């Protein structure tokens, strides 16, 4: 049962994804999913969706859409401009869009990826419980101009009848401003001897060959593997920092091959993987060593912020459904 369609007017580099295929890695299939999990979770939360609901990941390029029903959308992630019918509307807030009214995400800056969620989400094919594209298996992929995505719900406009303004403004958890990437020591750090500390000595520059599989970087001085001998292939975590032969440092991201035989020097924390997803080729990052306990504290703090946001959004949607609010705004359908 669908409730309309969202058509791509200008596709840019956009795909439908979710938080990933968590059942995949045991079969050798990468987890994939939104590279900036925090921003994807925020966009979904802002429109009242489950954190893991299918949404659009928009990378670097502009994208424009039109739906044939009224919808409620929210955009999060890299900064940019959300235009609805030609007017700028707020980023990081739920925004109503009327049927037939074109809306666009433009001028992504201070980051690489934006996430657009629609209240009710999309009806899309799943593989192992996830809609995340898998470039190896040939599942899903970029959407193209003219393509239409099935919407699971429509949402009548939430507009203040007197002022035409949004009914509410939500305060968002602050996004990280600088590209500091926290890592914990990897299980194979001893293989690198004293050269492991080079990771923290100077910034690294992200190279254009970076993608969802791994972020590649160059630096003035790379750590060097001191231990030798064949390592049997074994599971490597998302975020693993490796030093493959050559002149680049490699940080595995969510599209990573599940098993490999390279030693793991360090592991980027879950929260910093989101930061890394927003770094553009040519930009610099600086690694910072944190303890396992500090990493765990950061992830708990992030979860608490997301939970608090969800709780505020739920209160607002519940209030909007009360009859006495219908004089100022319209109720949710």
């Amino acid at each position, binding site marked *: 049962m669908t409730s309309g369609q969202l058509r791509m007017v200008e596709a840019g580099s956009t795909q439908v994804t979710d938080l990933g295929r968590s*059942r995949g890695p*045991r079969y050798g299939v990468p987890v994939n999913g939104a590279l900036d999990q925090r921003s994807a979770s925020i966009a979904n939360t802002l429109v009242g969706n489950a954190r893991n609901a299918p949404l659009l990941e928009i990378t670097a390029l502009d994208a424009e859409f039109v739906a044939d029903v009224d919808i409620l959308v929210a955009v999060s992630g890299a900064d940019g401009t959300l235009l609805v019918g030609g007017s700028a509307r707020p980023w990081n807030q739920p925004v109503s869009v009327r049927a037939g009214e074109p809306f666009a995400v433009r001028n992504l800056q201070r980051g690489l990826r934006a996430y657009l969620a629609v209240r009710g989400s999309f009806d899309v094919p799943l593989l192992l419980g996830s809609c995340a594209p898998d470039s190896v*298996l040939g599942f899903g992929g970029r959407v193209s101009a003219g393509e239409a995505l099935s919407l699971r719900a429509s949402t009548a406009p939430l507009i203040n009848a007197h002022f035409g303004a949004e009914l509410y403004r939500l305060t968002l958890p602050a996004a990280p401003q600088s590209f500091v990437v926290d890592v914990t020591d990897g299980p194979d*750090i001893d293989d690198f001897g004293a050269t492991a500390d080079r990771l923290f000595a100077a910034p690294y520059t992200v190279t254009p060959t970076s993608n969802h599989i791994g972020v590649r970087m160059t630096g003035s001085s790379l750590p060097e593997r001191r231990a030798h001998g*064949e390592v049997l292939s*074994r599971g490597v975590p*998302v975020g693993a920092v490796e030093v493959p032969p050559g002149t680049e440092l490699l940080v595995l991201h969510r599209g990573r091959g*599940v098993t490999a035989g390279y030693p793991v020097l360090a592991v980027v924390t879950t929260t910093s993987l989101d930061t890394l997803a927003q770094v553009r080729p040519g930009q610099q990052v600086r690694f910072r060593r944190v303890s396992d306990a500090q*990493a*765990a504290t950061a992830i708990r703090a992030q979860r608490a912020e997301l939970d608090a946001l969800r709780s505020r959004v739920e209160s607002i949607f519940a209030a909007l459904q009360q009859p006495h609010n219908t004089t100022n705004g319209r109720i949710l359908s």
Partner: protein
Amino acid sequence: MTEATSASSVTISTSGDAALRVSGVLPDREATWRLMHHLARALDASRVPGVACVIPTYDAVLIEVDPHEVAVDRLREFVGVLAESIDADHPLTELPRVFEVPVLYDLDGELDLRSVASAQGLQIEDIVRLHGEPEYVIRCLGAPGGSPMLDGPAFPQPVQRLSSPRAHVPAGMVSVAGRQATITPAPAPGGWPLIGRTPLTVLDLGSEPFVPYEPGDIIRFRQIDIDEYQALLGTRMVAR
């Protein structure tokens, strides 16, 4: 320094805030491999909240968690206790299934069979014979998409990986590298030398798991000619 918990059979290391690496340290390689897979199955069966995925390989298990749900240091103790409770001598599979895989070997020199043979100082017929001899135990599932990871045939030396990996290796390729062998169920980039191809369809994206075998099952390779290859093309891989 990463903290590691040592028990008599495993070493457990944090691998970031969302994963634990369990390494088997039993003196016997086969027992270590069984322990890793028994441990993975026990973890799956115990349905620990927050455990997202368990990836057993040869001598290690990677346990991925949702760090919002469970802290890896909390999980570590449980995994250590669980590992100690496992009988690593118990067979992984009571009745392993046997999968016979027909292979059209690369006798025409289109792939890498010749260079593999010359690097070993052997004729291509020797490589084909040695590759076809063993009953291969599937050690684990690997990338891409459930490749059956096998201990390699009895070649004199480890097989060198390609100096320049192929950007596209089609599905069904039969390959060797180091002391390992595999079949590629899905097209992907790859640096393993290719010695032949099977006409069987290994991957079925409509089922879970995608592949018909599991660790502990057996693979046998059988040489076929081009006519049989054509006749079998697209046949689903099933146990004998």
